[in-house]
């Protein structure tokens, strides 16, 4: 890590860094949809829209702001099934090296040792959205496992299964990885400032490809940070007032 990046890194919060990292993955997309409880992906999508002069279109299903859906809870999924959503975000209480995700529980099923909330819409969205970005802030062997205990949604499918979509990237607190559906493996794309390839390896339960040269994930520049703390903070506050207050110090005026 060079001097400049250390200085840049000091000027932003971890959330701001992740937002900028995810936003960089959204260039060129036409329509980014953001599910419930996703303030960081939500900010990333709004930042990308701001930088793109209104493109991508951003739809946030939580709340009424930036929410175009007027046909009930099914519309997000119908919309994805129609092929109108280019990018979506999924988490995973467990994610394995084949990009299988588990949102259901650790240990046995149906009586897991530790129960998670459940699969939400993953078992459809993962199949039909062309670019699904996995987001796992906690980069640990607890989350990034060798093999998930329950497949909420598989990372890849056999050729006879209609699957226009799937995972393309994984963003964690340590690094950015790309997923290749052909090899069914992740590849390390960049490591966040202040962290190392070794650290990523030590904290990852699955095997992944590492190119000879692994760049550092660039930190957000001053312009982006300024945008985030003003326009984006005000916009996301309509959906996530608590998050906006905590991360940007943005107080919503009712």
């Amino acid at each position, binding site marked *: 890590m060079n001097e400049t990046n250390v200085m840049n890194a000091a000027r932003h919060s971890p959330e701001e860094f992740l937002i900028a990292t995810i936003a960089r993955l959204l260039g060129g997309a036409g329509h980014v949809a953001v599910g419930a409880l996703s303030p960081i992906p939500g900010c990333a999508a709004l930042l990308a829209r701001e930088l793109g002069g209104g493109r991508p279109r951003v739809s946030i299903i939580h709340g009424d702001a930036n929410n175009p859906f007027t046909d*009930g*809870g099914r519309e997000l999924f119908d919309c994805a099934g129609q092929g109108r959503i280019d990018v979506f975000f999924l988490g995973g209480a467990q994610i394995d090296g084949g990009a299988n995700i588990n949102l259901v529980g650790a240990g046995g099923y*149906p009586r897991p040792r530790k129960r998670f*909330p*459940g699969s939400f819409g993953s078992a459809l969205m993962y199949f039909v959205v062309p670019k699904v970005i996995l987001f796992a802030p906690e980069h640990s062997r607890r989350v990034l496992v060798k093999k998930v205990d329950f497949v909420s949604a*598989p990372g890849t*499918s056999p050729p006879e299964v209609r699957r226009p979509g799937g995972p393309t990237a994984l963003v964690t607190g340590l690094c950015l990885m790309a997923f290749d559906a052909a090899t069914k493996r992740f590849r390390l794309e960049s490591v966040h400032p202040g962290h190392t390839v070794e650290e990523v390896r030590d904290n990852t339960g699955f095997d992944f490809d590492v190119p000879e040269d692994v760049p550092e994930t660039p930190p957000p520049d001053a312009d982006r940070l300024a945008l985030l703390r003003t326009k984006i903070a005000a916009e996301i506050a309509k959906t996530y007032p608590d998050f906006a207050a905590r991360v940007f110090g943005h107080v919503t005026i009712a």
Partner: protein
Amino acid sequence: MTSLEDLDQLAARVPDGALLALAPDYSWVPMAAVRALIRRRVKGLHLLAVPISGLAADMLIGAGCVGTLEAAAVSLGEAGPAPRFSDAVESGAIKMRDSTCPAIHTALQAAEKGVPFMPLGGLVGSDLVSHRDDWKVVDDPLGRGGGPIVLLPAIRPDVVMFHSPRADVHGNVWIGRRRELMTMAHAAKSTLVTVETVEDEDFLADDATAAGTLASLYVTAVAKAEGGAKPLGLAGYYERDLAHIRAYAKEAATAEGFKRYLAREVLGQPARAAS
């Protein structure tokens, strides 16, 4: 015709063992009616979250009202995991039927159309499918080489319950952009609605209000319950009380704490809303 009654009469319409459908915490959940159900000690519910739930499911589970839970997820959102839900699944106290959001919407649409099943994309290869003996993977039944697809049997709830800001005197109920409530009501055998106010109007008489109205044709009974969604919010009317929900999450982390909450906020207060 739609019946206008009180909250306890409404709760009495939910028999033990009923397949009861509730919308997510953000979608006008009838918390006052949920508390009335707990007070009347309803048992063995097959609770269907459409497609996810939070406080409502957690409280019904904690109070021992639920036999089977079908849901795509249960969570208290920003307030964290749903403690009574997690505990009940881990201990085997309830039977869990894991689903995924679009599967629940689709199964209700099948009931809405009166067809025995509907297909849904995705799903193939998810462990959700292998644990559901009612879902069926078939090879493209059109015979066009479309590959495997999952067929989901219709779900027809015995009872749908929700809370709305307003009904009219004819029993028509405002649902606004909460269209999942319409699909649920169409799919169900009976629909029970609590409301903030009953207005001397006909919502169907004006195109502007008709667009967001569930007709009384689908409404079995209406009961007035001011603040009936609290401590959850009623979008456009009042905000959820996140402090209350966070306090609940903390207190309900143990069975004993949940009992205290129940005694204080539900059983001890037959007529008052928690808030």
